[in-house]
């Protein structure tokens, strides 16, 4: 069976590389308009356009009226810009008798995401710290199981968790869903924190021990202040992951707690007459907006977070 230590061995190289992401280090560049440069930029621009195309289509479709969509070209910018689909998607689209669009789901998602992110990071960081600096006998076994857990298909766990939640009386509640997110966030986050704490100079820890500092004291006074970047990284990963979750939201909550992704699916599937593609696209954009904004604002940190978190995963 795998030993978790080997996981970090895997990435010893990439680990050191993460901070260097900012500076390119490839072979030396040559003249500006060489054939080589034209090839490189040409390829990148074509690829970038391909990647941007869906976003462009989403935006223009959401700003068109239905007649224009039926007649026109999906890539063409709107002739007549209308924000009606956005208003409808946010506040008016119906599921059954509830006609308040995505707005309700948005607040539910906030209520789910904030405590889940907080709790999962708290648990994982303390865990990672214990595993890195206070290793006890048997810890590796649990950690190995945890890492295997990261690869178990969710479907395997779906039903047992219904039973566990029922037995502790949390099924259908917000607390229950927060717990589920914390459990499934644990493997990758624990790994992330464990590797990060391991990479900190050991002398620091030893000196603190000599001074008589205990478990929690070292954690709060030495480790925490030194590991702000990894906390930011973990936060970004968790916010996007939990915000985008669909499966847990639909299985472990009830309609008045449904997160935005579930409402999006509800709205898209509540067809009344003709499919309103513009409303669907506006709803899709609205749902994707939070992770997108976080991604665009945090830019480099997100990239670094994914590199650090995933390469180590």
């Amino acid at each position, binding site marked *: 069976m795998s030993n978790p230590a*080997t996981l970090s*061995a895997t990435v010893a*190289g*990439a680990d050191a*590389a*993460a901070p*260097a992401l900012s500076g*390119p*280090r*490839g*072979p030396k*560049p040559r003249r500006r308009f060489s054939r080589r440069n034209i090839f*490189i930029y040409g*390829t*990148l621009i074509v*690829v970038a356009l*391909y*990647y941007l195309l869906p976003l462009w289509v989403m935006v223009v*479709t959401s700003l068109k009226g239905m007649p224009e969509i*039926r007649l026109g*070209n999906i*890539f063409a910018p709107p002739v007549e810009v209308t924000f009606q689909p956005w208003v409808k998607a946010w506040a008016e689209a119906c599921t059954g008798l509830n006609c308040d669009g995505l707005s309700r789901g948005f607040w539910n998602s906030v209520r789910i995401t904030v405590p889940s992110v907080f709790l999962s990071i708290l*648990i994982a960081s303390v865990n990672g*710290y*214990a*595993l*890195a600096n206070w*290793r*006890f006998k048997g*810890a590796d076994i*649990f*950690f190995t*199981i*945890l890492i295997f*857990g*990261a*690869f*178990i*298909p*969710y479907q*395997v*766990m779906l039903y*047992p*968790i219904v039973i*566990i939640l029922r037995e502790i009386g949390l099924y259908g509640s917000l607390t229950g869903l927060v717990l589920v997110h914390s459990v499934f966030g*644990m493997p990758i986050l624990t790994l992330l924190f464990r590797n990060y704490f391991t990479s900190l100079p050991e002398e620091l820890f030893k000196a603190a021990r000599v001074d008589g500092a205990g478990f929690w004291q070292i954690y709060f006074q030495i480790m925490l202040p030194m590991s702000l970047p990894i906390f930011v990284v973990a936060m970004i990963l968790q916010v996007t992951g939990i915000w985008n979750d*669909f*499966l847990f939201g639909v299985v472990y909550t009830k309609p008045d707690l449904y997160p935005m*992704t579930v409402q999006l699916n509800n709205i898209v599937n509540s067809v009344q007459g003709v499919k309103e*593609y513009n409303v*669907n*696209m506006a709803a*899709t954009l609205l*749902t*994707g907006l939070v992770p997108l904004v976080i*991604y665009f604002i945090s830019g480099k940190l997100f*990239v670094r977070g*994914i590199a650090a978190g*995933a390469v*180590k995963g």
Partner: protein
Amino acid sequence: MAAARPMRLFRNINAKIAAIPMVLTALVVFTGGTIWTVVYSFTNSKLLPREKWVGLQQYERLWGTERWNVAIENLLIYGACMVVFSLVIGFVLAALLDQKIRFENTFRTILLYPFALSFIVTGLVWQWLLNPDFGIQSVIQAMGWESFDFDPLYNADIVIYGVLIAGLWQGTGLVMCLMLAGLRGIDQEIWKAARVDGIPMWKTYIFIVIPMMRPVFITTLVIIASGIVRLYDLIVAQTGGGPGIASDVPAKYVYDYMFQGQNLGQGFAASTMMLLAVLVVIIPWAYLEFGGKKRV
């Protein structure tokens, strides 16, 4: 490390307390849940779990079911293509970005942004783009190429490739990012030495750099693989498993039988097979890693 001395229950007590959530998760949720699922796959549980043992009957039915075989075949096609294409495209893009180019950040941001979107969003966008009446097909036909025929989502033979396009769009950025991190970890001296020896660049990449990046490739592969086995949301949002059952995948089969078909036993049997598939991927990897190196 710190606490490698003889163990007593109260030694290192704070660390043990701190590890309680991890221990509970590992034992109760992951181990307990998995065992529970495997055990109940030998019953004929329908809507509710019950202990009526039927041996391997659920597994026999599973492998005798056309739909499961379609799902497995789809997963193999999607998986193989996803691994190959995302690794190749991801690596090539990373290598291009690593050429000390301008606007590297801009390009990287554009290539990675789909990863911030959920599979539900990805599936809906590509469903719209590939819609034969409004999407790419109709636009190109309207431009004059009347015979242009590209409607993967409505053609049972190629629908899985339609899903693949969306999957690659969402996931390649991450692979690119991992590869870039790996490339940046390569010692500059290697490039200098290769240049001095007059080795062409593509040869340096293939014969020197890629072998050096083996750990990154392996980890990336495992990440891609675990994502492939879990493929579900994308299918639901983009095709709903259709046309017919042509784009079905194991995860959807599990969900449908467990909850929709009210046949838990069948769903458990299918999810146990999925678990086996994951172990088949992970154990060789763990073995390779464990066999190859000592601890750091």
